[in-house]
């Protein structure tokens, strides 16, 4: 599937950079969008060309040298039709994006759903096609190549009974999707963003969700990334929280060869509350990097973040978590924890929990641990007749499942625990 790399790299560009530039040239005519969108795509690709893919010399990419790690880029050619999967949670409204194209038949009661490609065609999506800063390679790649997705708007006061599942399925190739989702004031909803491969063919997926919570909205957003072992996943969510808005954000990574998940969250309304929980299941040869940039921009806001990772085989993982407290954001309460079980001598994990604080009346803290399973815990179990490998498996499972239980919704907990158990059975 990989693009033939007989072409010489242009200038000092790498094979992957060259392939991206060439793919852009080849697709440009058929990518959806009006003149303004085309101009923006052009500019973003140009910036990407100038800056190149980020290296570890760029602080935000310290642990994921994309220039080195992204060796090849698969061809963007569409392949045969894929059927949507059953939803993770029974009864969910499924909005599927199959091989990069949003399903035409998708609809749901009480919410507005539009195809992102239509927003590109009429130009209304152009304002969102931006890079957040000069190191935002994902913004540039996605902005240049994005083809489709769903634009969703949940009206004020709406309470959605069943979860909405955004199902991004592919069978290799290049997939670039976008999900602008706004939640009206005091609305309540659960969204499951699910990225999966249906074949073992390599894929390059970039996906950005632009999430806006209006005042008082209470939202649960789950990202479940379980792509194939040859895949690259470049995910980004951009979140704005309004006054008294509550977001529970759960991120589960259980696949992919090269994964970068960026969570860019701005807390913009007083009384807002963020609960971030992450589970990284790392095995094989994969590299997974979760990078959080959380801005507490106004007074009286809370957040808690817990990231739990388990590392098997030759996998490597990284968590960068930056909490920024703006000068006037007094009474911020932010707590972050990053705990890792490093279960293989060939694996590695790096953590960089950062605090950047410009207000004095705050309570901020972070903790990070990296270790093997506690010998006392193991002893406790084995003293009760549990064989060592079973005891280890139980402790590893408990370590990550504990996080999922905080979802409270029984059906969601059960579904995610199922994913975790299945993964651990394959790897442990």
């Amino acid at each position, binding site marked *: 599937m990989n693009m033939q790399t007989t072409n010489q790299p242009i200038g000092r560009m790498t094979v992957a950079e060259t392939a991206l530039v060439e793919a852009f040239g080849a697709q440009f005519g058929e990518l959806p969008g009006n003149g303004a969108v085309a101009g923006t795509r052009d500019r973003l690709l140009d910036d990407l060309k100038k800056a190149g893919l980020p290296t570890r010399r760029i*602080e935000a990419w*310290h642990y994921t040298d994309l220039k080195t790690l992204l060796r090849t880029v698969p061809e963007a050619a569409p392949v045969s039709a894929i059927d949507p999967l059953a939803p993770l949670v029974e009864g969910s409204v499924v909005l599927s994006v199959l091989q990069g194209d949003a399903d035409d038949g998708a609809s749901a009661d009480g919410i507005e759903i539009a195809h992102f490609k239509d927003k590109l065609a009429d130009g209304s999506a152009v304002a969102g096609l931006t890079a957040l800063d000069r190191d935002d390679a994902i913004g540039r790649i996605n902005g240049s190549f994005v083809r489709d997705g769903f634009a969703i708007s949940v009206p004020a006061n709406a309470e959605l009974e069943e979860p909405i599942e955004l199902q991004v399925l592919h069978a290799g190739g290049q997939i670039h999707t976008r999900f602008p989702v706004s939640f009206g004031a005091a609305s309540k909803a659960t969204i499951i963003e699910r990225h999966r491969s249906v074949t073992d063919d390599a894929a390059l997926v970039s996906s950005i969700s632009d999430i806006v919570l209006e005042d008082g909205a209470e939202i649960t957003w789950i990202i479940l990334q379980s792509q194939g072992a040859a895949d690259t996943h470049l995910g980004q969510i951009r979140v704005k929280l309004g006054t008294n808005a509550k977001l529970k954000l759960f991120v589960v990574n259980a696949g992919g060869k090269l994964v970068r998940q960026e969570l860019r969250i701005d807390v913009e309304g007083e009384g807002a509350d963020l609960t971030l929980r992450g589970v990284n299941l790392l095995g094989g040869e994969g590299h997974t990097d979760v990078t959080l940039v959380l801005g507490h921009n106004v007074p009286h806001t809370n957040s808690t973040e817990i990231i739990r990772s388990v590392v098997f085989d030759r996998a490597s993982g990284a968590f960068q978590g930056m909490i920024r407290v703006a*000068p*006037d954001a*007094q009474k911020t309460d932010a707590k972050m924890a990053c705990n*890792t079980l*490093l*279960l*293989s*001598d060939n*694996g*590695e*994990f*790096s*953590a*960089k*929990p*950062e*605090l*950047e*604080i*410009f*207000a*004095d*009346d*705050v*309570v*901020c*803290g*972070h*903790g*990070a*641990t*990296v*270790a*093997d399973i506690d010998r006392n815990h193991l002893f406790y179990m084995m003293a009760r007749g549990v064989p060592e490998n079973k005891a280890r498996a139980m402790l590893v499972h408990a370590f990550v499942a504990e996080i999922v239980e905080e979802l409270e919704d029984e059906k969601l907990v059960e579904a995610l625990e199922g994913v975790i158990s299945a993964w651990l059975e394959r790897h442990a």
Partner: protein
Amino acid sequence: MPAVQETVDQVRRIDIDQYKYGFETVIEVDKAPKGLSEEIIRFISAKKQEPDWMLEWRLDAYRRWLTMEEPTWARVDYPKIDFNDLYYYAAPKKFGGPKSLDEVDPELLKTYEKLGIPLKEQEILAGVEKPRVAVDAVFDSVSVVTTFKEELKKAGVIFMSISEAIREHPDLVRKYLGSVVPASDNFYATLNSAVFTDGSFVFVPKGVRCPMELSTYFRINEKNTGQFERTLIIAEEGAYVSYLEGCTAPQRDENQLHAAVVELVALDDAEIKYSTVQNWFPGDAEGKGGIYNFVTKRGDCRGARSKISWTQVETGSAITWKYPSCILRGDDSRGEFYSIAVSNGHQQIDSGTKMIHLGKNTSSRIISKGISAGKSNNTYRGQVSIHRRAENARNFTNCDSLLIGDKCGAHTVPYIDVKNASAQVEHEATTSKISDDQKFYVMQRGIPEEEAIALIVNGFVKDVIQELPMEFAVEAQKLIGISLEGSVG
């Protein structure tokens, strides 16, 4: 913390008056011409009567430095330094090399008296209850006197200025110089390797426990002069040494550069305890003047069961860029870092440590306490790295920040890299104001608010103060008081 109005007013008032070491010594000075070139390096080397290999080493470093770029990753902000607008060598004129105290310029003696540094051995001996401390006093580019040299020699300890050591113990210097911080290590370290003028050399032979505390006192006096000191401490098998450095400078409107390199080598079972009380001129209330303190400090636990402990109290300097580190090479070796960094006014601190675990069963401990007040920014930046073969490595890190006033910033940037599953790494950091509960508890017992805050701050830094040699702990505590005067009473 949102300080009471009184405190806020006092913080505003805090300025150069608080810096009591800001006087200047008027003394005739022998200077190299301004600027940096191979000529200047040859001049410095000749002044110091150095052997050829030393000159070559310097020139190599200089040539390499020309190809390097100033680092920009630290959270500090300052106008570009014109490295050709500095004097790289300044020495008191009536100075012909360190000699007996009687021959030292009386102006200099007065300076040290004012600074409270005991240079007269008999004076130190007079106070029976006082512990004895051997002092190496470095004034601008040269060491003016080293006390207790003879007595230390009897114990086998070599304590002298590095210029002397290059002449008297060239083999030792050659063996260890640059072995921990290579000449090409980083921009400032490379500059230092090219132009370093003086510093201390300590060698504690096998099995010797250094009979007294050693200390160096650095003073920058001349205008537009950079101070580039180089310190090298070697503890052989089973040796122990405790070393303290202190620093001050006069108040000046322009910034001055201080780029030091400190190298520590601990062989099997050796222990080095290195304490710093850094009180360079921090600049005035408007952020004018002050020392740029760009320092590379690194210890190498080369031998098994060796231990290196860094303790620092940082209250001075306009800008601090400093990461005392430990390379834990020997099996069962241990590294420690205890730090109090207090910033006020417009000070910028970017400091922390690196613990590089290479050997088996190595352990490290990091305790960092940052206190920011005024319009200052205080960053902890640290790295804990557990290499693939470092079985059973342990690290515990705790970095806490306290904010006083709403114009300052406190930042924490820890890097934790683990490549061995048997490692156990723990990191915790908190940032907060003084809690109302704590304040209430103390005030309820009849202690006024300002004093209550001072008491709580003292409690906040206690873990680190405890690690300082006793007599310096008192000084450090006072220094913190002075630095925060007006903001905590």
